[in-house]
């Protein structure tokens, strides 16, 4: 269990990793990755009850996580490496030929921590619910966590899954939505508004929590609260307000960095804003 200061130090390093990985591959998705860095750091360091050194594909007895918005893979890979799933030196292979760290996450090449491929959006909630059902059948009281983009909620499958989990009382899953309000073509409200998102989830039978995903104390507290609310007959969703590009000034306040790599000069400028706390890979 890390304290808040430690988590913030790690999140800074994770953000450096994201910039360096995307820059090194000259492709990838820095915006959402940066925005969710605090959440993923807190989740893997303080919340998930599992053992990275003993990664079990079937996750029996372990909390499990599925990244549904697979394009923020550099964030996931960095956090997995920084918490001991594999060596940090492998981060340099991101998106390179033959790498286990594919552009979008996949178990295809055997990277520890990844169980199901994601990238084509909308599928991870169903997968998480399926695993949550299996845990119930197995008498396994550990939990399933998922993360989704807000634009991803435009996919119909999300609402099939949401309806199912609410109706069938799948109360051992905690889904989080990266509610940054931006997607590739612009603000979510312009592309296709999600309307009253909180009311929508409640109407589908979910407990809804909200938090600022870029305030570490709030992230840790809310995730802890979500865990304490499991097992009460309702699935839980956290609507997590974040800033796309958080931590790098010129990547914030715009959707321009959703899926674009910084050039050498921009990379330097970004890294100057992010303290190297744990040593670059």
């Amino acid at each position, binding site marked *: 269990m890390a304290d808040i200061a430690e988590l913030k130090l790690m999140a800074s390093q994770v953000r450096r990793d994201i910039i360096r990985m995307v820059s090194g591959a000259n492709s990838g998705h820095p915006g959402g990755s940066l925005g969710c860095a605090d959440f993923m750091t807190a989740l893997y360091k303080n919340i998930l009850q599992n053992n990275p050194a003993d990664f079990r594909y079937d996750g029996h007895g372990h909390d499990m996580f599925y990244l549904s918005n697979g394009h923020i893979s550099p964030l996931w890979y960095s956090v997995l490496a920084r918490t001991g799933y594999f060596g940090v030196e492998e981060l340099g292979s991101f998106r390179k030929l033959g790498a286990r760290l594919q552009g979008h996450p*996949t178990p295809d090449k055997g990277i520890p921590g990844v169980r*199901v491929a994601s*990238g084509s959006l909308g*599928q991870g909630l*169903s997968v998480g*619910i*399926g695993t949550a059902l*299996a845990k119930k059948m197995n008498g396994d009281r550990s939990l399933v966590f998922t993360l989704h983009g807000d634009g991803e909620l435009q996919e119909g499958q999300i609402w099939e*899954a949401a309806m*199912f989990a609410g109706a069938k009382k799948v109360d051992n899953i905690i889904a989080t939505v990266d509610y940054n309000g931006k997607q590739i073509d612009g603000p979510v409200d312009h592309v296709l508004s999600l309307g009253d998102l909180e009311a929508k989830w409640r109407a589908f039978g979910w407990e809804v929590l909200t938090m600022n995903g870029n305030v570490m104390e709030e992230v840790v507290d809310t995730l802890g609260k979500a865990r304490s609310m499991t097992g009460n007959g309702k699935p839980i969703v956290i609507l997590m307000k974040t800033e796309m590009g958080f931590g790098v000034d010129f990547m914030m306040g715009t959707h321009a960095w959703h899926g674009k790599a910084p050039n050498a000069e921009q990379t330097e400028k970004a890294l100057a804003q992010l303290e190297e706390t744990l040593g670059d890979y």
Partner: protein
Amino acid sequence: MIKYENTGSKDTRSGFGAALDILGDENPNVVALCADLIGSLKMDNFVAKHPERFIQTGIAETNMIGMAAGLAVAGKIPFAGTFAAFASGHVYNQIRQSVCYSKTNVKIAASHAGITLGEDGATHQIMEDIGLMKMLPNMVVINPCDYNQTKAATLAAAEYVGPVYLRFGRPVVPNFTAADQKFEIGKAVMMNPGKDVTLIATGHLVWKSIQAAEILENEGISVELINVHTIKPLDANAIIESAKKTGAVVVAEEHLISGGLGESVAQVLSQNVPTPMEFVAVDDKFGESGTPDELMKKFHLDTSDVVEAVKRVLSRK
């Protein structure tokens, strides 16, 4: 000609249901999912006996496939059932990413495949599903021919670790393969050795092909009949060896020509032993309403169509 006897007509979907019932009793890891079609998929016994391992998904097939993948990760052997039209085309992307690319141990139970779905018409009569599913890396595609074989195939699918698309049908059809058969995924079944022509059939066309072979035999044509229940992985050796012997091949299936078993066979033969071929299959058309028998005639999937295809290919030898 080896004699095959119809031991009592049954629907192939009931073979699936019977096997699922057995699996429910014998394998605690087997779970079943269904998108509001329990009766159609003959899952009733499993549902009644093992409600804690049955998941009613409602009419939400994409979620069903995703949940099946999540169940498989945690060690379950999920059989996700619905009509073939919805079990393939409707959820292609979910199968592609969450099942095949992720190599999750999901079994897709696709009932009411092909034109013999009958009166409901073309919206439900999928004849593209073999093609869709065989194109997916890591997918096994099985299309058994009768009740007994469907039952055996279902049991084999549960044993096999990896994604399987199990295709079966709605109508009552002759049941003629052995009740105690051992089903080997990827191994073609020699139904009748012959020397003049190779007749390769799958699914409901196997019985039609038996009847056709008997007619041809009476006319002095020796037919080598092969039941290819596994479209992928294809038993290429059996096909190549037979084609070398006979020098003429007909493939019969309840599917479009495009994407079907015939296309796979043509690929194997063109690379190994180029051989004249004819196809008994549907040519780039949607189906329509009618009884299964009427439709098999209208869409040229009947015994007489197999006989004619054999004569055509023999004329090209």
